[in-house]
């Protein structure tokens, strides 16, 4: 179990080098997106529109932060439960998404898409909202601002801790448990 520092955007080489169980520290830009944003994004793409943000090489963080108190860039921002985005995740990977951060296991279809497109799934510690907030240096809504906490928000992160839960070969920490 190594601790690996990675930056965004994620290259295929970096993705291939990550193994289930590795600890990572992510520096760069990640995008929050959860249920409503995924639904809107995939519906837009199905209508022939471009996604509201460029997904190639990027990481989606399944999270809806609490409001930023005065003087802070963001409120608490731990992961939300990933299975709710399973229906949409393969499409996002088709569009070039290379990483997803969330918590909890993914469906087989998602893992198959990860193997096909070369993407990785990270688990962040659920409920560690305050600790993860300290890794966020800036936050800017970039799409669907009317969704409030569910908007797609660009986060500038420094050494954001996560674990490789499922790697691009389909090795999955969650399915090792009972």
């Amino acid at each position, binding site marked *: *179990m190594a601790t690996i520092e990675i930056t965004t955007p994620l290259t295929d080489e970096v993705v291939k080098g990550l193994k289930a*169980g590795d*600890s990572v520290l992510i520096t760069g830009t990640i995008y929050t997106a959860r249920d*409503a944003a995924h639904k809107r994004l995939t519906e837009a793409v199905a209508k022939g529109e471009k996604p509201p943000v460029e997904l190639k090489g990027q990481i989606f963080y399944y*999270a*809806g*932060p*609490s*409001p*930023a*108190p005065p003087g*802070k860039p963001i*409120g*608490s*921002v*731990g992961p*939300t*439960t990933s*299975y709710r985005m399973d229906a949409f995740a393969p499409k996002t990977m088709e569009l070039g998404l290379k990483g997803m951060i969330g*918590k*909890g*296991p993914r469906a087989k279809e998602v893992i198959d898409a990860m193997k096909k497109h070369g993407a990785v799934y990270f*688990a962040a*510690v*659920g*409920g*560690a*909202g*305050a*600790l993860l*907030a*300290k890794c966020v240096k800036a936050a800017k809504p970039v799409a669907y601002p009317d*969704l*409030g*906490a569910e908007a797609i928000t660009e986060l500038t992160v420094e050494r954001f*801790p996560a*674990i490789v*839960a499922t790697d691009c070969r389909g090795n999955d*920490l*969650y399915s*090792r*448990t*009972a």
Partner: protein
Amino acid sequence: MRELKVAEITRAVRGLCIEANIVADEDVLAAFRERLKTETSPVGKEVLKTLLENARIAKEERLPICQDTGMAIVFLEVGQEVRLVGGDLEMAVHEGVRQGYKDGYLRKSVVKDPVERGNTGDNTPAVIHTRIVPGDKVRITVAPKGFGSENMSFVKMCTPTAGYEGIRQFVVECVKKAGGNPCPPVVVGVGVGGTFEKAALMAKQALTRKLGEKSPRPEIAKLEGELLEEINRTGVGPQGLGGSTTALAVHVDTYPTHIAGMPVAVNICCHAYRHGVVEL
């Protein structure tokens, strides 16, 4: 008769919403420290350490422990000798939630319609459960409930002869099915008996007990202990990533029920285990 202005209730609810979300339960933190000694998984140990550190940061920075500051569940026990004045009691509670979630920079996570959605913008309405009890006090419990755990709720209408074994099987099955989704280590609330909705309400109320407090009934206290041990043998572990700390406690409440049934409800709470109580 004792008069109580509902504005007092608003003020109390506001404060409880904020404190419950920012200051972690001391019993939970003590349980994490204890479990660090026995946790078998290295990843599991890291998770427990992270949660302890997170609680420290949340308290210091006045940030919510978790960004899912939940839908506010408010339990009211209103003494029969109390006369509530100055407005509608439930409106006063909703106003307390509105103020708490605004002033505390808590997340607004409530939508006005379950299908059409549409965020209400102020985390109201709360879900309120009221009982009229003897006495002249008003006891308010605010239990913000996040939906990662709430979505892992289950009810089974067991047969009347299912027994402790039937309860045991169902509860353990639910925890395994939930896996990592409710943010283990969890606290498991179980309601047995009553009716469909009574069992569910008991399961939720069981989650407002002091952590690890046993049932006053010896056979139920025994069941709680056995369930906790069995759940911690499932290997789900912290965050569902494997390990021996899947649950911190199991609380079971019972109620008389119909000759033809044995409803069993399971409500799982994440490790944040948030509630505040005030007596006015």
